[in-house]
């Protein structure tokens, strides 16, 4: 059993990682509009509501709006356009 053998690697090929620039950060939050993106995972609406309430309690000058994609597991282009046009930042709730 000490004889050496050569065998194949069973793994597939991962895609190339392509660098992406982060969106500009905000210098302050007061007066800004922040979207909470509810990904529609189980109970995520309840969590996002608690996050919204936290902002109301601690940073009431921030305009917090909850938004949802039109369908679970899909990239909602219209939702992204709304955030880009009407918002200053977004917090994405990711389930997995």
């Amino acid at each position, binding site marked *: *059993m*000490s*004889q*050496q*053998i*050569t*065998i*194949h*690697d*069973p*793994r*597939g*090929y*991962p*895609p*190339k*990682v*392509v*660098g*992406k*620039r*982060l969106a*500009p*950060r*905000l*210098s*302050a*939050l007061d007066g800004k509009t*922040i979207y909470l993106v509810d990904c*529609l*995972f*189980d*109970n*995520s609406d*309840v*969590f996002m*509501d*608690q*996050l919204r*309430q*936290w902002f109301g309690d*601690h940073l009431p000058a921030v305009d917090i709006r909850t938004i*949802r*994609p*039109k*369908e*679970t*597991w899909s990239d909602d282009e219209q939702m992204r356009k709304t955030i880009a046009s009407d918002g200053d*930042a977004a*917090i994405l709730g*990711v*389930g*997995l």
Partner: protein
Amino acid sequence: MGMPNLRQAYTPHPVVDQSAANLRAYVDGADAISGRPFMQEVLEGLTAPLDEADIQGLSFERTTPRLLAPDTEDNLERVFEDNRWTDCLPIVLPTEARVEAMLKGTSHSPDTIVGRLRPTVFREAWEFTVEKVAVNAVMAGARPEYFPVILALAASGITARSSSTTSFAAITVVNGPIRNEIKMNSGIGAMGPYNHANATIGRAYGLLSQNLQGGSVPGDTYMGSSGNWYAYTAVLPEAEERSPWQPLHVQKGFKPSESIATVFFGGWYTHAGYGPRATWKEKMRHALAAVEQYSPPLFVMDPIVARGFVNLGFETKEKLIDWCAENALLTAREYWDNQSIQLLRPKAVAGIEPYASRLKANPDDVITIYEPSDINIVVAGGETQGAWKMISGALRATVSIDKWR
């Protein structure tokens, strides 16, 4: 993702089933990874200035080698186990000679791209070649003559190692001439460990899924809470010659002479029954009401059962499927209280039928929970018992096996 310092904040697990008060405690508490206050991570994520790495992003190539460094069999077996490249059962080591022999099972060249797989829709998809599929087929103990079926499953785009927290498994039905050519078993013990082709094709589908998609490691690339026994192997040929009905692939528009693999996503539940006996309607209604409604039923019926239903006037599968769809009933309250059904709510709100009508129903209204197109029937079994199984299984893909010969 190309963003080395992506701003992230982590709650504890789970979010599912937690009360509003508990979730508020998550918000007020510590980040589950950094240990710093969760909201401090959130606020800094929104406001902390970008540095050069944030602006540049990070690009790099990744790959995996064709061959591993030479070593002893014992050590290599340990390498596979330690890297979680197995299903925790012993595997056949994929030597160059064994992989070469497997490749003789197809006319396609080893470097042909077969497809891409990923554990969930949120994760990156990995790509793979015919040779990489052959490696995993060898590991499963499959024979070269099974290889076109295994390639078809690999090309389906449906992973047999879904990371869903709900613990899906992939269940495959094989139709057409290939069943007999490779001596699959649709008779006694068709769903059990009694046939080399049935067993190793299903195992190969699982192994190739986890290895070619970039892993299926609990807590990392696998989050299924309870896991699923069907995930070890679940491949079934239909007993076309002993069925009084059209085979599944012909129902879906293929010719009887074509060899087709149909992939179902499910394995959450298995109900069982016999007959059809005098009270079959009540039995079936109870079973249909007891399913996990997000995952529709795939029936596996022994030929005795199928012939029994024909004698009751169900000359076609479609006729019985229609009856099942009409009799799969719940109150709207029960239907919409289901955790997974929440995933369908946006469709209902958007006015998409039949979900919109189900949402408009009053809570105590009884509604149908499936369309006929959701339900499938295959015939298999050894006719030692008039038994049927109702297995969770949503049809996700029908793929040509002949294309991969």
